[in-house]
């Protein structure tokens, strides 16, 4: 059927691990008659867990639904395992895609027990194999004691597990998760995020998750695509997203921080109201260019001998650390994360210094990406 290609699935294991499983090629989608996704491309390799992260309304769920086959695409194509599943006016129906989806509110069948819910995707197996498969899944998810309960009798975390078990039971090529932890409370959310991440890594499941919560994204995503207004703004590791954001939007959306204005002095230095900042790499700006520098809370270090004097305007106790909002004498707002023993009250004066090892610099007033 398909012409031979060096990337065909019948290659060595080594080869198949770096092989793309999901390819989204320049898709556009409408949502409620308005364009929601613009010419978006992404590639997910076998065994990789990626995450689409963005504020609500950025089109991330529409992308996920297009991959699952619930949403038509207007341009481009989607390939799963080298098979085209979506093209303009040509869609493989969801039931034929071998994609497992975990829905935002779990979408468990209310009239079926946990066991029957998990068995729902195994209709083509014989009764014996199905029972075995479900039993295995129940055990893996720690649901054996709840097998004959109905979804409404379970806690949020348990429902989450059932939804995951149901999606994974038919051994899908690709697992999709739409805000899977949004209905859980904060503590359970972190716990489940870690647990699910471990489980997916262990089983080598390829997974695409969609979320607006960066903690969820960082817990699960090997790669994270930050989305804004229907496009991927940056596709990178969580570390790079935080430390090397490529646009103002990403810098603002990921983590905390403030922007301070300055002028490019030469290719290695920026002159700001808080002093001269050194850059570790050559800056791609002309001299005297008006730029802004991102300061993360951990870049502002508590130092009794520091040259910058600031007043505490807000504090938030976080256990081992305290997040302070500071205002310098010149009126520049700063966010600072101090160790907990550096304990100050509102209105107190503190001395800080800047400890920036990698400058993140944008053109001034580049708030619109």
């Amino acid at each position: 059927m398909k012409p031979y290609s060096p990337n065909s699935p019948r290659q060595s294991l080594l080869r198949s691990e770096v092989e793309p499983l999901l390819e989204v090629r320049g898709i556009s989608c409408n949502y409620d008659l308005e364009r929601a996704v613009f010419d978006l491309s992404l590639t997910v390799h076998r065994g990789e867990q990626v995450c689409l992260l963005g504020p609500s309304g950025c089109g991330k769920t529409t992308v996920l639904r297009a991959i699952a086959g619930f949403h038509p695409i207007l341009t481009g194509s989607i390939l799963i395992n080298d098979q085209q599943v979506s093209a303009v006016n040509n869609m493989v129906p969801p039931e034929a895609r071998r994609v497992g989806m975990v829905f935002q509110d779990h979408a468990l069948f209310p009239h079926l027990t946990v066991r029957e819910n998990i068995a729902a995707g195994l209709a083509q197996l014989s009764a014996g194999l199905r029972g075995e498969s479900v039993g295995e899944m129940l055990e893996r998810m720690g649901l054996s004691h709840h097998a004959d309960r109905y979804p409404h009798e379970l806690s949020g975390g348990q429902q989450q597990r059932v939804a995951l078990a149901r999606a994974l039971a038919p051994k899908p090529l690709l697992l999709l998760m739409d805000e899977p932890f949004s209905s859980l409370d904060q503590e359970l959310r972190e716990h489940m995020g870690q647990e699910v991440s471990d489980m997916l890594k262990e089983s080598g499941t390829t997974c695409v998750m969609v979320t607006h919560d960066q903690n969820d994204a960082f817990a699960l995503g090997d790669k994270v695509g930050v989305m804004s207004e229907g496009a991927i703004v940056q596709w990178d590791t969580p570390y790079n997203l935080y430390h090397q954001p490529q646009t103002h939007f990403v810098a603002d959306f990921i983590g905390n921080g403030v922007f301070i204005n300055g002028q490019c002095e030469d290719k290695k230095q920026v002159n700001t109201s808080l002093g001269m900042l050194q850059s570790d790499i050559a800056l791609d700006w002309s001299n005297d260019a008006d730029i802004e520098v991102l300061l993360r809370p951990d870049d502002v270090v508590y130092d009794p001998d520091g040259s910058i004097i600031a007043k505490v305007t807000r504090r938030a106790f976080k256990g081992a650390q305290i997040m302070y909002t500071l205002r310098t004498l010149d009126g520049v707002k700063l966010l600072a994360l101090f160790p907990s023993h550096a304990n100050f009250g509102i209105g107190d004066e503190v001395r800080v210094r800047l400890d920036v090892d990698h400058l993140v610099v944008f053109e001034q007033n580049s708030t619109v990406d």
Partner: protein
Amino acid sequence: MIKPTDSALTASRLNESTKMIFHRRWVRVVDNFFQSRWKGLSVAIPYVWLVIFFLIPFFIVLKISFAESLIASPPFSSLFEWSEDAALKMTLIFDNFAYLWEDDLYVKTYLNSVKISTISTILCLLIGYPMAYAIVRASGTMKYLLLLMVILPFWTSFLLRVYAWMGILADQGTLNSFLIWAGVIDQPIRMMYSEFAVYIGIVYSYLPFMILPLYANLEKLDLTLHEAASDLGAHPITVFFTVTLPLTIPGIIAGGLLVFIPATGEFVIPDLLGGGNVLMIGRVLYDEFNSNHDWPVAAAVAIALLILLVIPMMLYQHAQSRQINN
């Protein structure tokens, strides 16, 4: 700097909290009043209504069913009589019920009524389910337009609509004229005064009672469940039978009983469209009461019909309470 702001804040808070207390006290007074008097009254009104307009008439009918037919006014014997030693004597006559059982006609009529209403209910379900489904899936304005079209017939008299069907189904009626004009038939087909006409009348008249509860049920159904099922590899037909249908059973039961119960006792439709050829219990009851002037037998027919319908009504109650519990 801080102090005046603080005190102002405290003052406004204090003001607010006194307002709250005052407000709460009023709420409590009104609440108590409603709880002690209006709550009792609002519960009592429907009960009083039921007793006056349902329970008392029911006992009157029950009383008549145990009486004996007389040529008098009223045309039945009294249950209670003062005997010579001034004691109250009650005579219950079970002859009427025995008569219903012994005479083939009644048993046959009951069975035929149940048959006709069962088939009508199934027809209503088969026609109404796709209609309700289509209405739920229709978008925005179209949905309300379709829903309005289901409810619209209620704005004209039920009797008038059955008469309209007489005009359509008659030998020289609209349908036959059209078929002859179109060259499909040479001779008019006899449609009036047959079970066929009765089915048409019942299905037409009671279809909205099937569609509306099904619509309400389908409307509440979470569409992501369909997506979840198709994502798990189920073909749309499988999705319907494994997800949609099981989750709309409450609607099917409610709609089914809303059609079945009134259809079983239906009088107007079999009388106007079925003529003498279709035996249904509502017509027999009418004849017994109006033509034979045998009130006790007519009352016995009504009581027997009620007992026949109590079973599905209890099923309905059960289904409803189960739905509420869920």
